[in-house]
């Protein structure tokens, strides 16, 4: 039940953001500070998820070479940087994870 309400709340808020400037049919602009702030939101939120997922896969900080997710994640970042291709990035990262897990086992 809570999960349904959570999804509905996010959906309603998202639609509210999309319709905000279209609802009244009058032109509008965001203040410069808001525009500057919004620019950093995607990068910041994605990094705040990526770093713990790679550095703390089991909860504790693991900076060793034995951390398969860290090594695979760094490789995926290099692929993303070189190719700018999302599927190639996910594919390379997953392949690296499977190989490392097989090797480290």
């Amino acid at each position, binding site marked *: 039940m809570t999960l349904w309400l959570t999804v509905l709340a996010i959906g309603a808020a998202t639609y509210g953001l999309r319709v905000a400037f279209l609802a009244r049919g009058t032109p509008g602009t965001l203040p410069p500070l808001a525009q500057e702030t919004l620019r*950093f939101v995607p990068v910041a939120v*994605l990094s*705040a998820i990526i770093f713990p997922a790679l550095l703390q896969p089991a909860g504790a900080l693991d900076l060793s070479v034995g951390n398969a997710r860290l090594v695979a994640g760094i490789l995926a970042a290099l692929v993303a940087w070189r190719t700018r291709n999302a599927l190639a990035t996910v594919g390379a*990262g997953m392949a690296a994870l499977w190989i490392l897990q097989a090797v480290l086992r």
Partner: protein
Amino acid sequence: MGVFSARAEFIAGVRDELPIVVGVVPFGMIYGALAVGAGMPPAVAQAASIVIFAGSAQFLTAQLVGIGAPAVVIIASAVIVNLRHLLYSASMAPYLRPLRPAWRWGLAYLLTDEAYAVTITRFRAQQARGLPMLHRKWYLLGAGLTLWIFWQASTAVGVIFGARVPAGWGLDFALPLTFIALVIPAIRDRAEAAAAVAAGVVAVAAAGMPFKLGLMLGLLAGIATGLFVWRYASSGMRSAREPT
């Protein structure tokens, strides 16, 4: 020339959206599989694609449901991620202003990253060439509906098959990988790089906080750092552009 029928504009919207759909479909399937794997009931996972209809917020929701974050944190995080839609709404407003309210309210629902990207490109190009843009709403409708149909279908495929993927495959790792694929091209200058590093480091340092607040702290630290570097530590050319 210069005269576009409603039908032709609709088809142009569909046609321009299709290449993007090719890239979106695998992620719809990954989302569906991850959402089910994170413990979301299939109906909720699919409903999220209909109600939220925003990939990154849905991935984030699945991730936070999976680690047991409270509803307030999930909602706040997803809404913050979706704040960029305000920018889309504002930049679409001048083009859609002449439409009747029903069209404006309806098209707002379809204003995703992917539909916005092709539509604003088209509108700006037509405006620059002085074309009449009589049927512009049909273009956005074509692009938006195309994405909607493929997003729903790919979510369903992921939801159906995701439940059968063994945990040993580590499919949950596709989520941070997806985010890596999104974040690397999004880092275009020093301020954005600083925002990424600050957000990541603070999120790691604050990972032990209750209610998964580490994510929010990381997000705030990243935004603050990005703004600071942009305003005070970037090149002189940029500071010269500052309004005050």
